[in-house]
Structures are given as structure tokens and as C-alpha cells.
């Protein structure tokens, strides 16, 4: 009895296997079945390297060349250049508007207009206070959200990974790329505002918020400080965008996610009952750059802000790394 059954069973199995083998070539043409994923690859003991082929040698400059090509791609992409142009145009608009408003009557001038009209350098800080709210974060979110998801969406991620660069390195390159872009955005705003200000308003000693007056060089130094601070903030936001970018293959998803997070934070800040939450929100820290305009410079607030930026960067990058190094790349 048992013998008979076994025979029939195995016979059926053989038949099934035969049909499956027979059917296999008839799968949808053009799609290659995924025989091996990252998980199966990890479970398998690594094969010994085939003799004769030397292990790939990593040339020291490889990382920087990869970063260079990445930067070249970023700064040649029309979309990114357009965003730089837009953020660069805002200080010009603000400057011209303030010039036209401030030229008329001296009596109704508010503090901001008065300070800009009195000194060209103040236009930089006024522009920053507008742009850090939304426009600069959006520009950084676009590049950051596009970093991994964009490659995945375009189907180029697997080719990038085919090069012996390693995922961690690729992630590092992508993040540094966003950091450079973030600083570029900040610097463009600062330079555009500085040039506009110098053309439209008188240069000279800078009046700080505390009412003290400092020489022009000191004012330029303070602009440099604020650029450093805001750039670090943009880098932290970029890290968040890169992290979101590793979770999706749709770049718009990652970009929108980051922008929505920024907007939600701004809304939360407006609710007085949620004030205890505010120190932990990333966008709430962008505007603390005005600490450089106080006398003495409020280093405590700046350092607090930088540590918040650092915390967001470390957390986001570690999440991105954990996700990206363990991800199956299917596109």
C-alpha cells in the first residue's frame, strides 16, 4: 500500500516539475524572474573569488570623483539651477520693494524697512528671515528627496550600484551632494542680497538688533556666521529628505514628504499650546540665525540650534543607511 502511494506521489511530483519546467520559458517576455534577492545572497556563503582575477583595488580618489560627477549632475540639472535662480531673485525683489516703499515717507517706516534702508547688509538678514521659512527648505528638499528615489525611479540605481562603490559610499556621496547644494542655496541668497543691498542702500556701519553699531567688516563676518548656521540647518533638512528618499522609488513622494513635514512644523509653531514642542522642531531652529545680530552674539542659542541640526542629521542618516544597505534594489 505504502509503496504504491509513494510511487504515485513521486510520479505526480515529477509530472508537476516537468510542467513547471516546460512552462517557464513562457513567462511574460522581457521580464527576468528575480532569482536572487539581497536576502538570499546574504544567506549564501560567499563564493571564493575566481582565480586569476585580482580583487578590485579602490583608488583613493574614487570617492571624490564620484562626488564630483554627482555635483556636476546636480548643478547642471535645469530644475536645480532654476531653484537657485528663484531663491536668488527674492532678495532682489525684496530690496527693490523696500527701496520703493522706504523712499517715500520717513515717518511710517517700520523697524525692518528702516534698518534695511539704513544699511545694505541688513537686506541679507531680512531675506534670510523670509526664505528660511519655506523657499530654501523646498529647494533643498527637492535635491535631497531626489537623491536615491530619483535614481530608483529612473532605473539607474542598479547601474550605480554595479560599480564597486558600495552602498554606504553612495549614500555618503548623495548626502554630501545635498549638503553642498544646501550651502549653495544659502550662499546664493547671501550674495544676491549683499549685491542688491550695496547697489540700492548705503553701506557703512551696521546697527544690530540690540541698538549697538558695529563696523562693516564685523557685519560681513556676521553674515558669514549666519550663512554657516543656515547651511548647517539646510544640511540637516537634506538628511531628512535623503532618509525619506530611501523609502520610496517615487522622488515626488520623498520631496513632498519633506516639504509637508516643514509646513506641518511651521503650523505647530503657530499654536501657542504646543510651545514646549518648539525647541525640538527642525524648522523652528532655522530662524535662530538672528542671534548673530545681537550684542553680544547669542552663542548659546546658536549652539543649541547646531546640536539640533546635528541630532537630526545623525538620526536621519542612520535610518537612511539602515534602510538603503538592506534594501532590495529592483529598479
Amino acid at each position, binding site marked *: 500500500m505504502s509503496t504504491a502511494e509513494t510511487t504515485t506521489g513521486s510520479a505526480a511530483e515529477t509530472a508537476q516539475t516537468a510542467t513547471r519546467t516546460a512552462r517557464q520559458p513562457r513567462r511574460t517576455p522581457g521580464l527576468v524572474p528575480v532569482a536572487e534577492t539581497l536576502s538570499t545572497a546574504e544567506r549564501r556563503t560567499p563564493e571564493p573569488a575566481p582565480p586569476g582575477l585580482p580583487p578590485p583595488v579602490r583608488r583613493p580618489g574614487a570617492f571624490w570623483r564620484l562626488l564630483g560627477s554627482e555635483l556636476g549632475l546636480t548643478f547642471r540639472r535645469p530644475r536645480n539651477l532654476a531653484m537657485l535662480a528663484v531663491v536668488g531673485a527674492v532678495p532682489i525683489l525684496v530690496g527693490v520693494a523696500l527701496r520703493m516703499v522706504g523712499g517715500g515717507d520717513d515717518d511710517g517706516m517700520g523697524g525692518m524697512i528702516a534698518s534695511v534702508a539704513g544699511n545694505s547688509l541688513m537686506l541679507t538678514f531680512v531675506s534670510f528671515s523670509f526664505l528660511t521659512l519655506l523657499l530654501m527648505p523646498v529647494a533643498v528638499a527637492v535635491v535631497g528627496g531626489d537623491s536615491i528615489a530619483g535614481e530608483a525611479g529612473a532605473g539607474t540605481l542598479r547601474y550605480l550600484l554595479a560599480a564597486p562603490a558600495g552602498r554606504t559610499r553612495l549614500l555618503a556621496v548623495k548626502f554630501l551632494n545635498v549638503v553642498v547644494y544646501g550651502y549653495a542655496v544659502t550662499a546664493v541668497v547671501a550674495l544676491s542680497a549683499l549685491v542688491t543691498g550695496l547697489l540700492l542702500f548705503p553701506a557703512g556701519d551696521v546697527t544690530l538688533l540690540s541698538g549697538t553699531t558695529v563696523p562693516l567688516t564685523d557685519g560681513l563676518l556676521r553674515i558669514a556666521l549666519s550663512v554657516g548656521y543656515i547651511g548647517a540647518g539646510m544640511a540637516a533638512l537634506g538628511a531628512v529628505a535623503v532618509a525619506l528618499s530611501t523609502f520610496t522609488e517615487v522622488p515626488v513622494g520623498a520631496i513632498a514628504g519633506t516639504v509637508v513635514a516643514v509646513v506641518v512644523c511651521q503650523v505647530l509653531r503657530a499654536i*501657542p499650546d504646543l510651545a514646549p514642542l518648539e525647541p525640538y522642531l527642525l524648522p523652528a531652529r532655522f530662524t535662530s540665525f538672528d542671534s548673530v545680530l545681537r550684542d553680544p552674539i547669542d552663542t548659546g542659542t546658536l549652539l543649541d540650534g547646531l546640536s539640533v541640526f546635528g541630532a537630526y542629521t545623525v538620526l536621519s542618516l542612520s535610518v537612511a*543607511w539602515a534602510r538603503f544597505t538592506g534594501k532590495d534594489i529592483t529598479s
Partner: protein
Amino acid sequence: MRRGTFVRWGVPIAAAAVIGAAIGAGPVVAAVSGDPVLPERSAQQLLADAAAAVEKTEGPLPMSGTVQQTASLGLPALPQTGSAGPLSLLSGSHEIKVWYGEGDKLRVAMPTQMNETNLIVDGDQAWYFDSATNTATKILFDPGARPDDMAEHAPQEMTPQAAAEKVLAQADEHTAVSVTNTAEVAGRPAYQLVLKPKDAGSLVEEVRLALDGENFVPLQVQVFAKGSAEPAFQVGFTQVTFTPPAPENFTFTPPPGAKVEEKKLTAPKKEELSEAHAEEARKAAEDVKIVGDGWTSVAVLPATLSDLKAQGGEEAQGGEEAQGEDGPRFGDEADPAALIETVLKSATPVSGPWGSGKLITTKLATVLLTDDGRLLVGAVTPEEITKAAGVR
């Protein structure tokens, strides 16, 4: 799940843990190292030491720091004033920076987003600078007036010193006073003087006053309302250093382009001070009646709705501000009429054998505006204030 996944995700989890630890480091470190223990002192000893310390240094010790003031008085939401002024201190949390120099030098700065208001007192002249309006106001004291009056009155609600003095003045037989020696304020071990009203009708649960363990400078004042664990009003240093601040802090020249105004503050002369006070008190006694005593005292003053609207915002503020004397106000404030309007909107109509009126309750104060033209203010429960309204 594979082992690799666990190891990988361990990294962000560890990062989150480290960041969480860094945020909570203060409390954790305090818990591990235990409470700072200062030599025990009784309330009397403590006050005597504090008084001795004040006398020795003749005025405030040279120091600087950041003061945080939090008020959750349960006031109805105040209309946005736009400009940051002393009035905005009534709700929410605020940070101000203070510098005390040798002698009569004082600087108080209130930083807000892209703006700052400064009060700089140097000897017998003071500057008030508001960057939002770009106005510098020079305040001149009358010759002969005590310049340190300014230092005491202007930042009345702001500095712990001034607030502490006020609290100390109220401590009498209606109060149970105790001292703890394990508090910590701005990272410094401190004594805490706890004042607890004995009367059940008071809205105040207790008042805690923290004095620095080393030089007895008041560091923090907290006012707890009945039935809430968080202080309804708190002002205290979050960071403090007892080194003389840089002299630049106390010099001020109006920046070019700023509007410069001048105000003369006619402070009464020293010898006239007591006389003026007595006269003022006599005058005040004519219209202001105090019902009850100690913590449950209720001030009764004649006022009608239209009076109030014309008079300005002072009475509507309620809380302890209404009891304390008003410091000089600078700059443009919110429209007082609008403020009163908002506050009155939240009032509930009440009536009883004493008549009828509008009742405004906050965490620390109750205000009753009766229809027969009386305004009752006190840090008492609504029952107490209606009881007081019955007293003619």
C-alpha cells in the same frame, strides 16, 4: 527577519537612544548624582543670610544670565500685540537676558524673532531701545531721585530679585513657611523657601522661592495655583554666571537713523518718598477698600464698564499684576480697549444676594465686576469673592 536587518536597524535605534539621552541628560544626571544637599537652614536663618548678603554687596551682585518667565494664568487669549512689550509677558513663555553691573548698572534684553527690546540703566539715565520701531527712548531721572528705584521698578515682573522681594513682603502670619535645601536652579544648588497660604479660600497653593546656595541671590520664583502641578507663574534663571559682565553692555548710543525720544521720570525724592506714599495711600484708601486679610484679601474699587474701557488695560490684567504696583510702561502697547473687550467676552454673568455682575476667573485671580459699579479683585475662589461682594 534576518540577523543582518536587526544589526542594521540597531544603528538608528542606538542613535535615537543617544539623542534621547542627551535631551534627558539633565534630569538623569541629577537623579544619578542625587539632589544637591546644602547645610540645613531654617527659614529665618536663610532670610537673615540673604539680607546680610544683600547688605554686604550693596545692591545686586554683578552677574548675568538668562531668565525664563512662564505664565499660564489661564487668561483668555490676548490679542496679538505685534510688538513685543512687557504686556506680552502675561501669557506664554518668554526668555529675557539680564546683566547686572557694579553699582546701578543694569541691562535687560528681550530677544524676539528678528527684534529685540533693550533697557539699559547706567546711573541716573536709562535708555529703552525697541528695534521693531527703531526708537530709542532716553529716560532721565530727576536729580536727587534714587536711581536704583528704576532698577527696582522697571523689571518688576521680570527679574527674580524683584519678584522675590515682593513675595517676601507678603509672608506673614497667614503663611506656613518651610525651607528645603535640595533644589537646583540653573545648575546651581539652591535653597527653596516654600510659602503656603493657610487659608483655604486662596487660589494660591504655594509659592516657592529659590535662593542660590552660595550667595543667596534669588534665582527662581514659582507660584503654584490650587490643583495644578505645573506652576501658573514662574520666573527664574535658566543660566547664570556670577562674573561681572562686560562694560559695553551698559553703554548705549542711539544708532544712526533711530528715532530718539526723551522722557523724564519724576521719581519722588528720598525725603518726600514716605510723604508721597502716605498721601497716595490716603487717596487710594478713599476709593479702594480691602475686604479680608492675608492671602484672601479682596480689593474693592469703584469702576463701571465704561470707566474700564476708558481707563486702560491695567485692571483687566488680573493676577498678581493687579495687586502689585505697575511699573512704568514703555513703548506702544495693544489697544487697551480691545484688550478689555477680549477679557470681558470670556466673563460669565453671575448673580446672588449681593447683586449681579460679571465674573472672570483665572488660575491665580478672580475678578468680579458688579453691575452696581464695583470691581473686586483677589487671588481667591469665586465663592470668596462673592462673599466679599456682599460686604458693604
